[in-house]
């Protein structure tokens, strides 16, 4: 029975007592690996010596499927990658194909896209906050977060009939006009939401245990973050003020004012603060956008059958998790020759080893939580 102590690992004498390194398999079924991530840990006591992520349990071959579907047919598939931020996925894909076609969505469509995408960002961050807090042992925030997320999902449902995998946008614009109370719904949500974020912060931000669990844990320096290709809130928490919405605006982001929150230390606590502030900024964008939705068509004239001229394009957006990029190659037929997705979760997850070395198992849980991965996107 004691084989368990040494299985798999080469037993190395590390202490006088003769305690060996332990190999611990976390996942693929584990409460805090957020799906089917499997992390192979090499432990000395409870200290992490190294980690190895074993992924692919949710691999569905999305990129292969793309090559056998028409451009429009593939659009719903992208929703299934980062399934907690389906709207953002859809936006990235639609804009990429529009670029491949040389078309552009009309202004009204772009503003509505912006609003929905920002709501989705809030929803995604709320889900992250709830599960992250749950990982660290705070049982209550998750329910508050889901309460607010529910409001957003209701707006999605009213708009396009779906809550999770929405397929809200079409290549060239939107399929549906906004429903009648769209503006009031979004406005009401935004008005309520400001107080709610404060509520979460009251529970956590200055809580001694929370600070103790997150501050100085999983530090990622700016240089490391860039070298590892880490993007999104994690990069910003590491101190680099970079946001694709500002750097290379898409949709209608160039029209709105918002700040890019950054952190100082690149630890778990900073990542938490950055995401909290991002929710506030997203709310700000929504409020600005809802004030003035331009009238006009919602669909560009792209035709029923899409045949982009041969060539290739890379386009990326600031998804809730980081830079979500699509690299599409057309050979002039109705089906893409190749669609490559640059999944932010996949690349951010690569930084896990860097952050986790020397931490405790309990810290690892916090670090995985703060990486904000969705396995559907990691594995595609």
């Amino acid at each position, binding site marked *: 029975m004691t084989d368990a102590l040494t299985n798999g690992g080469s037993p190395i004498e590390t202490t006088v007592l003769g305690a060996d390194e332990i190999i611990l398999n976390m996942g693929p079924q584990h409460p805090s690996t957020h799906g089917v991530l499997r992390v192979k840990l090499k432990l000395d006591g409870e200290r992490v010596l190294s980690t190895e992520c074993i*992924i*692919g349990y949710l*691999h569905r*071959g999305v*990129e*292969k*499927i793309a*090559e056998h579907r028409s451009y429009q047919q593939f659009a719903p598939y992208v929703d299934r990658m980062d399934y907690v931020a389906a709207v953002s996925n859809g936006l990235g894909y639609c804009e990429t194909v529009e*670029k*491949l076609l*040389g*078309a*552009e*969505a*009309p*202004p009204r469509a*772009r503003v509505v896209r912006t609003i929905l995408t920002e709501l989705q960002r809030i929803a995604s961050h709320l889900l992250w906050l709830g599960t992250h807090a749950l990982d660290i042992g705070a049982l209550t925030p998750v329910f508050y977060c889901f309460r607010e997320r529910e409001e957003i999902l209701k707006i999605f449902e009213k708009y396009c009939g779906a809550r999770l995998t929405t397929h809200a946008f079409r290549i060239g614009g939107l399929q549906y006009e906004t429903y009648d109370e769209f503006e009031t719904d979004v406005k009401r949500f935004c008005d309520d939401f400001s107080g709610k974020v404060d509520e979460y912060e009251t529970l956590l931000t200055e809580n001694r245990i929370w600070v103790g669990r997150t501050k100085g844990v999983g530090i990622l320096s*700016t240089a490391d973050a*860039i*070298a*590892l*290709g*880490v993007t999104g809130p994690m990069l910003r928490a590491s*101190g*680099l*003020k*970079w*946001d694709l919405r*500002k*750097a*290379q*605006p*898409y949709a209608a*982001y*160039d*029209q*709105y*004012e918002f*700040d*890019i929150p*950054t952190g100082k230390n690149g630890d778990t606590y900073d990542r938490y603060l950055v995401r909290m502030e991002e929710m506030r900024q997203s709310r700000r964008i929504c409020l600005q956008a809802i004030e003035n939705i331009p009238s*006009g068509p919602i669909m*560009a*004239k792209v035709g029923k059958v899409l045949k982009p*001229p*041969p*060539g*290739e*394009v*890379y386009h990326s957006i600031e998804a809730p998790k980081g830079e979500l*990029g699509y*690299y599409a190659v057309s050979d002039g037929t109705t089906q893409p020759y*190749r669609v*490559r997705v*640059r999944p932010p979760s*996949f*690349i951010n997850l*690569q930084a896990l080893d860097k952050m986790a070395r020397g931490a405790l198992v309990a810290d690892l849980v916090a670090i995985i939580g703060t990486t904000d991965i969705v396995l559907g996107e990691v*594995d*595609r």
Partner: protein
Amino acid sequence: MANDPSEKIPPSTPPEGKAEGAPVSQKPAGEAAAAPPKPAVPAAAAPPKPAPPAKEAPPKPVPLDNELVQRFKARFGDAIREATLDRKQAIILVAAAQLREISRYSRDDEKFDMLVDLTAVDWPKREKRFDVILNLYSFPKNERLRLKAHAGENEPVPSVVEIWPAANWLERECYDMFGIVFEGHPDLKRILMPDEWEGHPLRKDYDILKQDTAWVRENLQIETGQ
């Protein structure tokens, strides 16, 4: 704190130098914001443009010859095979053998400090069937650049992990999906597919219904995964 990259390192190519289709900003509206990303900028940015005319000239790749390409050519000569601009995005085709040196130069001298993505495209009818594609991004310049190298079926490509650690998993994925071997990769093994899987699914000659039936039978105890 390095909150604003363009304050740290003065851009070597000013963003305005886009005249002849500069490398790369994503779209014209984006160029305006290539300046320091500050909240004030979007207010000054161009108002939303009217929808573009429905029928433009269809976009197509055109040859590119700007300062950046010239610097690359001056430095590497023949290793820079071709430079094109496709949908306002710069693509440089380089010799696979020189990929690592060119990458290092791109990172250190041209400040393309982040490897955004590394992937491949399979063109089975071509003599060297694979395109290995590196998507680079420069924080100081707010520009993107795409390096492309051709590789044959059993021809190793130099790994760029030592230049951008981010390439580690990306190269593994490429190997997994296309079977491209990256020379010098610290731990080149499959990442998404099971380790013992036969075949590389994203190759064009790997049918979408195909699978490693032997593996499926042995490991999942079912006849077929379909």
